[in-house]
């Protein structure tokens, strides 16, 4: 196509990224669930550079690679699919605004997930403030949306409620590890903690959840 031969500064990066994209697409065997971010991959660095140059295709690639997992993380932190989608959109805007400050200390994907989690907590806080202002609002509207049917619906609902009673730190680690399949090294990057801290926090989270989920069953047994 004619472009009057004007060389654009980011054209080289874009081409490189597209070549890498094709290579990755060949290697991927169409996974049903997007893979969690992996540290230090070549594509991750290319994506970061292309996003820094303002290439919208790079943002799209980031979305294609991690959007599904981003939506799921946000859905579990915010309770509804529409809030989750809003949070993902807000995350992309923050990535675009802040990409100039990204120095590559962590992987680009890890950095993006960190922004997502902070965005979700901002949304939770703002929702809490609104709830405080409008006390008369019926509680029904703040309940999480029902989910797709599952093998253990009762346990899942109990788990969702118990998760809300964990500390933020424990909830984040549990969600990233057990629900989204991140590794401890990746969680360490996302939450800016050590790998050991991630393992300890997960252990504490599971112990607390175990106690919370066990208590109602014990009461049932005693009543029976």
């Amino acid at each position, binding site marked *: *196509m*004619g*472009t*009057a*031969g*004007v060389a*654009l*500064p*980011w*054209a080289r990066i874009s081409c490189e990224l597209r070549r890498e994209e094709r290579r990755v697409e060949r290697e991927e065997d169409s996974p049903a*669930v997007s893979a969690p971010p992996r540290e230090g991959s070549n594509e991750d660095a290319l994506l970061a550079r292309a996003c820094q140059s*303002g*290439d*919208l*295709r790079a*943002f*799209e690639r980031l*979305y*294609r690679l991690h*959007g*599904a997992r981003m*939506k*799921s993380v946000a*859905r*579990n932190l915010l309770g509804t*699919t529409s809030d989750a*989608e809003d949070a*993902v*959109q807000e995350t*992309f*805007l923050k990535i*675009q*605004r802040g990409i100039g400050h990204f120095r590559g200390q962590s992987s680009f994907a890890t950095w993006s997930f960190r922004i997502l989690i902070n965005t979700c907590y901002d949304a939770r806080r703002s929702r809490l403030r609104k709830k405080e202002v409008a006390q008369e609002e019926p509680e029904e509207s703040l309940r999480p949306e029902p*989910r*797709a049917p*599952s*093998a*253990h619906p009762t*346990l*899942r609902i109990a*788990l*969702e409620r118990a998760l809300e009673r964990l500390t933020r730190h424990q909830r984040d680690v*549990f*969600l990233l590890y*057990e*629900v*989204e*399949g991140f590794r401890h090294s990746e969680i360490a990057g996302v939450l800016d903690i050590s790998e050991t801290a991630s*393992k*300890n926090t997960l*252990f504490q989270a*599971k112990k607390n*959840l*175990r106690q919370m*989920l*066990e208590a109602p069953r014990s009461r049932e047994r005693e009543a029976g």
Partner: protein
Amino acid sequence: MSAMNVQCSDRERIFLDGTGEEWAALEAHAARCASCRAEVDAWKALSRTASELHEEWDSAWLWPRIERALVEDSARRASSWWARLPGGFRLAPLGWQIAAAVLLLAALTAASFLLFLDRPVPPGDEALLKDQAVREVQRAEADYERAIDALDARARPQLENASTPLVASYREKLQVLDSAIAELKSEARMNPANGHLRRQLLAMYREKQDTLEQVLEAKP
């Protein structure tokens, strides 16, 4: 399978950070120990149920929505970035680094003005380089714009008879891009030497070119 000897007291350590081999040994031990069996089962059930909390759903319109927001935000920031500069009175929100850079620049300008005050300057030479660079950029930009307009003319019939949601989405994106380009061009007319605005404008042209190419490649 494993010669490892695991006791009930090892259970929590293995839950915390056990290797695959240690887990296998714990499973073997739990086959003979009811309390460990119950704990291992509960621990695993928690992980199983947690994996059901991962949810995926289709939201085909989400990326186009994000893309539009990115384009609009980028255009808005490009214009507001310049709007802050000319007065120089509202530097505080820009951060101390930019304020320091502006002060340094002002000091250097003043110093060079004092140094070269006595030297005769040939008439019309003061802004020659800058003006020439701006003219070159403007010429290249005009060529590029003409090429994109030609591309637009070829894609126009397909866009106007948008028969698929994909083409309709491209049309909507192009409208957003056109409005961002118009805004940036009007800013650039007022501040022709602003390199940041020029780069933003080129990014928008490039995005428009890519989108038009996609429209032409899309099946009618």
